[in-house]
């Protein structure tokens, strides 16, 4: 086989792997990414039930009700409230009035069934999606958190 022929094979296989990678990445980006939504967006029915998404906001004061390991609470951004159900152990920093991000699925009744609850591991720190969403609603201002950013989010999950 000539030098040219071998180079063609090399380039051909490189392109094949590249195409495979691109195909996988595009398929995965279509199917597996999760959008972040605020309670207002869910209340306005922008989101179809059954879609997997992240919901972020503040845990409404007085809304947390526990029964064994099952928890109900309400996430608010000041304009709208979304009831959330979750079963499992909550992260250490989950508190009423604090920021929270929950990942899960919107139910047909407009409530949210979470399978993962995240809270950042720093008492002053607000999850950035929550901070941005709250800023949009005018309920929170830059400069309040301060301090160094937290390392990794603490997760709590039921699969």
């Amino acid at each position, binding site marked *: 086989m000539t030098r040219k022929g*071998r180079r063609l094979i090399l380039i051909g296989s490189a392109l094949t792997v590249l195409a495979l*990678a691109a195909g996988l990445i595009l398929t995965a980006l279509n199917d597996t990414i999760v*959008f972040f939504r605020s309670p207002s967006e869910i209340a306005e029915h922008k989101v179809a039930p059954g879609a997997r998404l992240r919901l972020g906001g503040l845990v409404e004061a007085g809304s947390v009700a526990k029964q064994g390991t099952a928890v109900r609470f309400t996430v608010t951004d000041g304009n709208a409230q979304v009831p959330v159900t979750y079963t499992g152990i909550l992260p250490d920093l989950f508190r009423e009035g604090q920021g929270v991000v929950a990942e899960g699925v919107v139910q047909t009744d407009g409530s949210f069934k979470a399978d993962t609850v995240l809270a950042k591991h720093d008492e002053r720190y607000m999850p950035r999606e929550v901070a941005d969403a709250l800023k949009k609603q005018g309920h929170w201002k830059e400069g309040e958190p301060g301090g160094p950013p937290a390392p990794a989010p603490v997760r709590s999950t039921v699969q």
Partner: protein
Amino acid sequence: MIAEIGQYALILALALALVQMVVPAWGAAKGDPVLMGVAAPVALAMLIFVGGAFACLVALYVTSDFSVANVVENSHSQMPLVYKITSTWGNHEGSMLLWALVLAVFGALVALFGGNLPDRLKANVLAVQASIATAFLLFILLTSNPFLRVLSPPGEGRDLNPVLQDPGLAIHPPLLYLGYVGLSIAFAFAIAALIEGRIDAAWARWVRPWTLTAWIFLTLGIAMGSYWAYYELGWGGWWFWDPVENASLMPWLAATALLHSAVVMEKRDALKVWTILLAILAFSLSLIGTFLVRSGVLTSVHAFATDPLRGVFILAILVVFIGGSLALFALRAGELRQGGLFAPISREGALVFNNLFLTAATASVFVGTLYPLALEALTGDKITVGPPFFNLTFGGLMLPLVFAMPFGPLLAWKRGDLLGVAQRLMLAAGFAVVAAVVTAAATAAVSEERGPVLAPVAIGLAVFIIAGALTDIAERAGIGRVSARLAVRRLTGLPRSTFGTAIAHLGVGICLLGIVSESAWSLEKIAAVRIGETVTIGTRDLTLARVENRAGPNFTSRVAVFEIREGGISQGTVEAAKRQFAARQMATTESGIRTFGFSQLYVSIGEEHADGALSMRATWKPFVTLIWLGAVVMALGGLLSLADRRLRVGAPKPARMRRGALPAAAE
């Protein structure tokens, strides 16, 4: 006083870095041996000064000098000594100083052990190293100075983030940085080769030990970080596909590819241009990782935009080094000499296959990590690219790679015989099929529908890799074909790098075994228990014996003690706790872990309810320790390769003598 000494030492180190960057490079261009000779002693001097600055910062932390802002922010006088020391690098400024220190260490190592390098190459390598050092020392001094004083010193510090108050912080960042920054040597060699416009097999022989060293540290660093996250975050996950983790995985993948392509270059004088490009890419990914973690861009795209000094500075470093090196590559790559030819089915072909899939996998991790940032910056949409994305893309690309892994080392150089190799792997394939069938039968026997269908197949694949690695050694020794005595003699005569390859590949198989069994057959129980109540998980019963308060040096902890019984027989206790840190008013979850064989029982607790019940989660993780054990075995394989005589003893002089000896392998 100590802070000021540290500051001056850093400034002097910067001056030395500038000298080391300019003088040897100039000497190399003019062919002046005196100017080139400046590089080595200056590199050693720089290590002394950066090391001195680092020692000053450690001293400030040990003595809890709260007149220094960095110490106030990240330390507490009540912390145990070991955490006072580790908090030196448990923050942005200190960790950048550690980065610079590791860079200086590697520069000094090249100066010390680079005796057999040609003078020009050595001078250029050290000059490129010094240019990186200059950039990072400037970054530290201008934007992240750890030695800044506070006007009115407080009486007490604000404590280290409790999550970081763990022995993991003592080991993980130094290991990871040794890996990250170690890749700068391969980068410096690549740039030096491009500057000289000349590269040969000897170059690959010099670069390989450095890359291998970096790769070993990176492997151990990533494994250590994974285990740390596993036990400290209390969730039991060992890999989150978090951008911070991906930042360390990408250089690892590129370094793995580089190791393999450097073999082709060393043995067959082929793939030169590609190897140079990989060396540039591997270190570029290290820099991008540093940018992701250190610029604050992950925490908030907006914080990055409003307080841009640090981020923009690192971004500028990225542009200069990555852009500059790629531009140089584009200019000079065409001048590099063509290498030897090989058939598609050959050892070289297999290593190209490895490189193609590894770089594609790196690209998929890169896209998954940066796409959300790009999308948010461009459209404002916030998305999460989580495990499903990476499982599909990264997993999909790794699958053909690991399947092909046993074939590679068995193929001959230049032109291989795939059918013959397949026949020699029949026994390994047999083991794999048996393992898959046994696994499927066993899971079916335990319960009707537990575990995904693919898991037994994946177990079979892992066994195939392990058996394939052993086949490689057995084939080389001729076990079964020659007399036992001859086989033993051949076995002891095999080069260490052959064992290194086999053991590193074995490690991948072991790691895969752990990953598959942990993801497919973990058992989980979440419950609220009162004292004396029992939760059953798998074959074991967990009884909450008592809950008690204990005092730590700078925290109080609430400890739940569980008794473990299997079939009525006591197996001791496991303790899970919640720690409350007063200084930051933060709580951490301390998981309780008991190891049985290769499997682990993982218990963590949540809050206590008003009625006295305690939320708890118990997880049975079968063969989970194999994940990290596999990584350690991989590193061990790397170490064996590094110990190979051929890499240590006098690398031959550059290709002048080889040029004639290696006829172009054309037909």
